[in-house]
């Protein structure tokens, strides 16, 4: 376990310098005009950054309003019979709700739950596994589709949310299974 962690830590530290070296040196050897080509590619960065702004504003504003209104607590209360059924402690329900909506929001909920119930409690264990196992679906969709100006996202959101629900439920089961009092 420790060994795997050390290996992965090293891999993530070495990955970027290695890629920069590999790309640029290979390009240079293959007689690519590295500087000009790099600058040419980098120009696109600005366009994409500016292009996603309206999509990001729309998405983050709606989600911030939803969070500030306290709607998540109300939905949590309404859904509690369902979570009892799958054995999810009702305390982690706000976490499950927040995770696909907001990265910083779910970070806050996770920290709060671990402060209240302990980092090594079942609730803390489930909440941090939920945080570690999925991305912020709404944010990713807004940024990625926004970057290419796609307005009709078709079935992307429902499919992403179905995947999230599967991940969240798995987190509950696997944590309950592995948790030792």
């Amino acid at each position, binding site marked *: 376990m420790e060994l795997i962690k050390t290996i992965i830590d090293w891999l*993530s530290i070495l*990955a*970027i310098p290695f890629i*920069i070296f590999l790309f*640029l040196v290979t*390009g240079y*050897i*293959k007689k*690519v005009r*590295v500087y000009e*080509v*790099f600058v040419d590619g*980098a*120009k*696109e*960065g600005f366009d*994409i950054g*500016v292009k996603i*702004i309206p999509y990001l504003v729309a*998405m*983050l*504003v*709606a*989600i*911030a*309003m*939803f969070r*500030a*209104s*306290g*709607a998540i607590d109300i939905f949590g209360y309404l859904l509690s019979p369902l979570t009892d059924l799958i054995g999810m402690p009702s305390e982690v329900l706000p976490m499950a709700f927040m995770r696909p909506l907001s990265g910083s929001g779910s970070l806050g909920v*996770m*920290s709060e739950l671990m402060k209240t119930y302990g*980092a090594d409690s079942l609730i*803390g*264990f489930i909440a*941090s*596994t939920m*945080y*570690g*196992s*999925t991305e912020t679906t709404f944010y990713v*969709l807004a940024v*990625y*589709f926004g*970057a*290419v100006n*796609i*307005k009709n*996202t*078709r*079935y*992307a959101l*429902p*499919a*992403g949310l179905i*995947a*999230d629900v599967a991940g969240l439920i798995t*987190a509950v089961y*696997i944590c309950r299974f592995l948790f030792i009092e």
Partner: protein
Amino acid sequence: MLNHIWIWLIIISLLIAAGKDIYQEALTDKSSGTEAVEKNLNERTSLGQVTNAALDAAGLAVKIAIGLIGIMALWLGLMRVAEQAGMTNVLARMVKPVTKRLFPSIPSDHPAISAMLMNISASMLGLSNAATPLGLKAMDELQKLNPDKERASDDMITFLVINTSAITLIPATAIAIRASLGSANPQQIVIPSIIAATMATIVGVTTVKLIQFFKQKKQSPGN
């Protein structure tokens, strides 16, 4: 779909905030110390809080987007060099058996494939600064293959579902916070997270593939 969810997020938040305010207002005793309360109406009321949150989020969105520009430029520049050197093709050929099944309509030497691969590898290693630019590059390449530029293609959705349920080998943020809150074994969540993310990916890919399968069947009933 996003259209409906977006408007309902806003409607629900406004209704709940208004409901809370009406309820609060009914409870407050009108005769006692209104002056002190009036001052902070914007912070005291739920509607005020919702408005503040909306304004803050609009500013934050621009900050995030501007912050992305530098890193985006760096990665897109590097990717362009790699493309011209013919490196991305080598990478794409190596994983052809998998990508052929996930993205049957994309030629295996298309730059979209290598960009998607690099995005997924970066997010597995937890390099989110590198993952986003590479992912956006992948979307840009997928958009070139998309016949309808305003409508998401099947390949884009498959890619995004894999991306949002991304398997991270070391969920570094969650581990760091566990450690700071006194966990005896902060990296205990590594294996559960990988299992949960894998499950999410499997279910997500199965869902999009089923949808795509039935859509195709509908379009060509003769087959």
